[in-house]
């Protein structure tokens, strides 16, 4: 009990079932209530896979005068050590189970089950106890050859181990095949095809033990995941990356003698060996990979189905008893399926572990959740107790302070443990901008450094020639800019002329053209000033600029001439024919001047 409450007080409410931690639990002292009677027990023992699945349907009767609040479930120490999962239900409601100790029976393990409603005297109640135990089946013989079948031995009790007197009980054992080497008999025992039925037995006293052994053929995969590390990396950009690292061991009868590929390929009689297994991952999984330390494992297939993605994973080599392998699978899922938010508050709801293969047994699980940088107030809730490991920090691309990492661990798990965990946390939305800004700043600094470096002159001696060259080139650059401005002004002037032609508004036009001509003069003056400056360093270029100015003068003159002609035409001082005659040579002159300017500017 301690363990439960200390780990997650809050999660107690959410407990839907309880799985008992193997050790380290200080149990409450309990007595055996002599008044309780098991009126009827129907026990089912499923030993067809590598697991031992026990279901007991118990009808309890209160034979005493006082109401009963709880009853005890008993296991041997061996069974308790191998117990992975336990669930007690009454109808559809799940009952609370806690570990208990009974002073007179130190050698046995007890679990106290609290009934939902106290059992009144004389009444009966139906409960169903479900237990899954791992590693209880013992390969016998422990070593077999390649072509041999795998035989295992189950050792148990013909009677249901219970502290109470049982009126009537039956046990049905389910087997994988009709091939049985031997089984213990306690009348009445019936063996049909793949099942053995013991009982019914009447009036069995509490704690009655009668050893049961079943030695049978079991070629179902005895595959144990000795270590499963599941890493979930949450990104608020819409992706959740899942990666699982698995160590897989074949726990069946060990291979004795040689492995012959020839026999393996020819006969297909390697009963207990495992060639491949199926792993089911979420339907939305993308970018699935299957690899190990030395690269991609090329022997796998992926089938996309409606509700899941099925991976047919084939290890690099077939697994015989005692052989092990190690691999990684990983995939991405969209975060909208698992991440819920309200403002800055987020809830991540994902599976603690996912399907690995059917009837899996996992010895050790470590679940790690990597949250985005800047996450605060993390609260982790699990449906069953898990050991929380110290939080760490993980650094990856574009991180500054690191991402918070939450991890939990637990031993001995089976498929029934595939349940969701809930992770509450707070993440200010503004932090989403951090990473893009980081990139922007990095590039900005890079460009700035390059700009500075290119312009920086660290030489001690002054190099006049280069400096003059640089001065000239910067002046020439300015000449270009001014000329460009001037060219734009000329274009405006032309536009004005066209406008004048259509509007015939001389006064309005004159104010506009005057202004433009003034600006052109300013630009020309600026170029002349530059020309003077260039002359100080390089006479050749200055010459060229001077020529440019000359050409510009002709250009300007012709444009101004055009303007006056148009004005005259509008005012009626010039006939249309005269205007046309004057226009043609002017246009030609302009074209020539422009052509020359272009060539000249290309050389500057």
């Amino acid at each position, binding site marked *: 009990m301690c363990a439960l409450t200390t780990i997650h007080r809050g999660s107690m409410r959410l407990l839907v079932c309880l799985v008992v931690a193997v050790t380290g639990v200080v149990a409450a002292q309990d007595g055996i209530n002599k008044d309780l009677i098991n009126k009827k027990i129907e026990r089912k023992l499923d030993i067809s896979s590598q697991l031992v699945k026990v279901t007991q349907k118990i009808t309890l009767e209160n034979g005493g005068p006082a109401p009963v609040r709880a009853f005890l479930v008993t296991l041997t120490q061996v069974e308790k050590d191998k117990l992975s999962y336990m669930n007690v239900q009454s109808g559809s409601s799940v009952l609370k189970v806690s570990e208990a100790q009974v002073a007179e029976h130190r050698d046995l393990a007890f679990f106290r089950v609290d009934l939902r409603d106290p059992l009144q005297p004389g009444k009966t109640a139906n409960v169903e106890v479900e237990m899954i135990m791992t590693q209880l089946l013992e390969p016998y013989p422990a070593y077999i050859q390649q072509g041999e079948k795998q035989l295992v031995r189950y050792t148990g009790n013909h009677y249901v181990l219970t502290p109470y007197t049982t009126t009537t009980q039956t046990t049905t054992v389910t087997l994988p095949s009709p091939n049985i080497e031997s089984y213990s008999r306690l009348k009445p025992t019936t063996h049909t095809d793949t099942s053995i039925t013991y009982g019914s037995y009447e009036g069995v006293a509490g704690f009655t033990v009668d050893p049961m052994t079943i030695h049978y053929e079991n070629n179902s995969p005895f595959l144990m995941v000795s270590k499963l590390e599941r890493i979930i990396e949450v990104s608020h950009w819409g992706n959740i990356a899942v990666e699982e690292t698995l160590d897989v061991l074949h726990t069946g009868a060990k291979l004795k003698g040689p492995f012959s590929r*020839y026999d393996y390929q020819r006969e297909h009689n390697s009963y207990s060996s495992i060639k491949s297994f199926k792993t089911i991952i979420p339907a939305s999984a993308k970018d699935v990979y299957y690899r190990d330390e030395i690269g991609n494992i090329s022997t796998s297939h992926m089938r996309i189905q409606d509700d899941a993605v099925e991976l047919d994973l084939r290890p*690099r*080599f077939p697994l015989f008893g005692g052989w092990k392998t190690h691999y990684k699978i990983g995939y991405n899922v969209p975060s909208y399926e698992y991440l819920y938010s309200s403002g800055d508050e987020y809830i991540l709801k994902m599976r603690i572990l996912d399907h690995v293969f059917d009837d899996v047994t996992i010895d050790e699980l470590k679940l790690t959740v990597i949250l985005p940088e800047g996450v605060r107030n993390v609260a982790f809730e699990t449906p069953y107790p898990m050991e929380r490991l110290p939080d760490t920090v993980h650094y990856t691309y574009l991180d500054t302070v690191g991402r918070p990492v939450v991890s939990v661990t637990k031993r001995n798990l089976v498929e029934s443990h595939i349940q969701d965990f809930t992770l509450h946390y707070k993440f200010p939305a503004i932090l989403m901008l951090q990473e893009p800004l980081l990139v922007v700043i990095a590039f900005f600094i890079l460009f700035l450094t390059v700009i500075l470096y290119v312009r920086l002159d660290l030489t001690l001696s002054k190099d006049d020639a280069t400096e003059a060259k640089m001065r000239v080139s910067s002046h020439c650059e300015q000449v270009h800019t001014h000329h460009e401005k001037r060219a734009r002004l000329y274009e405006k002037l032309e536009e004005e002329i066209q406008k004048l032609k259509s509007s015939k508004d001389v006064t309005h036009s004159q104010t506009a053209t005057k202004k433009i001509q003034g600006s052109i003069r300013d630009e020309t003056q600026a170029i002349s000033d530059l020309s003077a400056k260039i002359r100080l360093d390089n006479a050749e270029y200055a010459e060229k600029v001077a020529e440019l100015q000359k050409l510009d003068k002709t250009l300007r003159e012709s444009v101004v001439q055009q303007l006056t002609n148009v004005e005259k035409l509008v005012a009626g001082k010039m006939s249309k024919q005269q205007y046309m005659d004057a226009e043609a040579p002017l246009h030609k002159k302009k074209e020539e001047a422009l052509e020359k300017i272009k060539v000249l500017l290309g050389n500057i």
Partner: protein
Amino acid sequence: MSTSILSYRTRGWLRMSVEKQDTLLKMAVLSLAAILSFSCRLFSVLRFESVIHEFDPYFNYRTTKFLAEEGFYSFHNWFDDRAWYPLGRIIGGTIYPGLMVTSASIYHILNWLHITIDVRNVCVFLAPFFSSLTTIVTYHLAKELKSPGAGLVAAVMIAIVPGYISRSVAGSYDNEGIAIFCMLLTYYMWIKAVKTGTLFWSTMAALAYFYMVSSWGGYVFLINIIPLHVLILMITGRFSHRVYVAYSTLYVIGTILSMQISFVGFQPVSTSEHMGAFGVFGLCQIHAFVDYVRSRLNKAQFEVLFRAVISTVAATGVLVLVMLTAMGKIAPWTGRFYSLLDPSYAKNNIPIIASVSEHQPTAWSSFYFDLQMLTFMFPVGLYFCFSNLTDENIFIILYGVLSIYFAGVMVRLMLVLAPVMCILSGIAVSSMLSTYMKQIDEVKTEKKKTKFEGNYFMRSEIATFFVCVMSVFLVMYTLHCTWVTSEAYSSPSIVLSARGHDGSRIIFDDFREAYYWLRHNTPQDAKVMSWWDYGYQITAMANRTILVDNNTWNNTHISRVGQAMASTEDKAYEIMQELDVDYVLVIFGGLTGYSSDDINKFLWMVRIGGSTEKGTHIKEHDYYTPAGEFRVDKEGSPTLLNCLMYKMCYYRFGQVYTEGGKPPGYDRVRNVEIGNKDFELDVLEEAYTTEHWIVRIYKVKDLPNRGA
């Protein structure tokens, strides 16, 4: 009113001066070349996956990982007990650490910046990254030699030249990947130093040389070619103060630095390979001194002095050299160098050198295959260099001529030839193109003036035609390079692929299957015996102790393994017990038709096995038929059909049907039915055989109980 408005503007949106356009163009071409050289090396990664693809680089990968994880000092002091059992190997003192240090530094810097890339990816992409750098260095080198134009052409050529790509694809993580960069960097610095005569460039050259020494054994080529350059300059009367400063600085600093690499140690002052450099260093001093004396004395006095000094110095020098060699102070040249000078040397004397395929002389066709148009552009480049002889052109001529000889001797040295081919071809193409391009241009602009100077017939047309032909050549070169890279140099050797009947790709991933099995299903301290080719891979991928590996430093040990493979089961068992072997691994291609398997390598095992004292009972001719053939069918020699290697390869193979219409036990590599079929192994048991039988692993049985 039809006068259109004239455009007064003279420039478009991109306003740039000629210099800026020039810079932009150069930068654009260069960065495109760098990107191209990176990306065309990614075929294997894109087709398969991001892992080390070749056999040898697995060792480099393993050591890099060790360095990145354990730090430099433990790397430096690393005694590897996983290899050469029971001798072990001092890794720190027997490798060139440049490659590992480079990748480990990149790894640490990236991780410090929180770019969490793992060591494997750094290793996989290191060679392509360094090829990009090589492209840039080549540009600078060719620019110094000729012009920026030549530099650009050379850079683009080296970006895709197959001779270099073959050793630097992604996933081949070998010393050569960075060594070519180091080599060209040293040359560039050296040319700069010779041109300027400044201490700065000479020291930079020494540092670049140090980097080269730390990364590849081929540095010996550098330390011989640079002195040779100086010597030629002296002979041709071009020796100057610039050369004196450059070489003296480079030699002194470079030698001291190179001795810091523990694998090199005192070699620069004790072995014959480095003596040339030392001699030229001395000559330099003498030449400079003589020049000084000559400037102080009159001619007659000088003559007398000169003769006397020269004869004494020469006599004592030769005497000292002979004495030192006789006393063993100066090591004679190693086998690899003899085989450089005399191609048949290795074959006759050292089987282990001859057994490596990359130490074979180069076939003519492979010159064309690896260099294409460069082979015929090379002489043109030489012509242009001769036509304008300068100090630096002499260097590139020397480099070109020497490396073409070495490349002819050893396939591996094609790598050294490729850069100089690119540089010389770059010079050739650029010179010719600029000559002819001018002809096209001039005719257009000065049509009127040159009308009467028509001393060339159809000048413009011919020029245009020539430029077109050259462009076609260049396009062909690009296509050839891409094809070669994609088809020949990008198929990994750890994963084999074949085409099935329906055209689908079949992957034979047997090597990794076997190594992974070893890694997980054998005891941690198991000793695996295999032929040395697979040593590096087994240590890296299977993480198990091996007897011999690709660092073939101990011939006796390899020979012992060869003897075990070539002996009968009983004899082999004795050797295996002596060497404490737990597992034996062989590569067998008979089922799939994988031809480089152990049976095809077997003759080398016999030769190497028989080459030492303990293996004198193994004679090569015992493994041949009386007619002198090497056959595994019924005609084969009984010695062969009963030796350990044969038995391990063909154990239970006699029952397998491999091809329709052929008897069981039909070997698809040698295309025969095997001769010895139904046998059992006494001292070994099959431990694992991969899906396609390519790798077969046997467990050595324990000694039988006494009396049992």
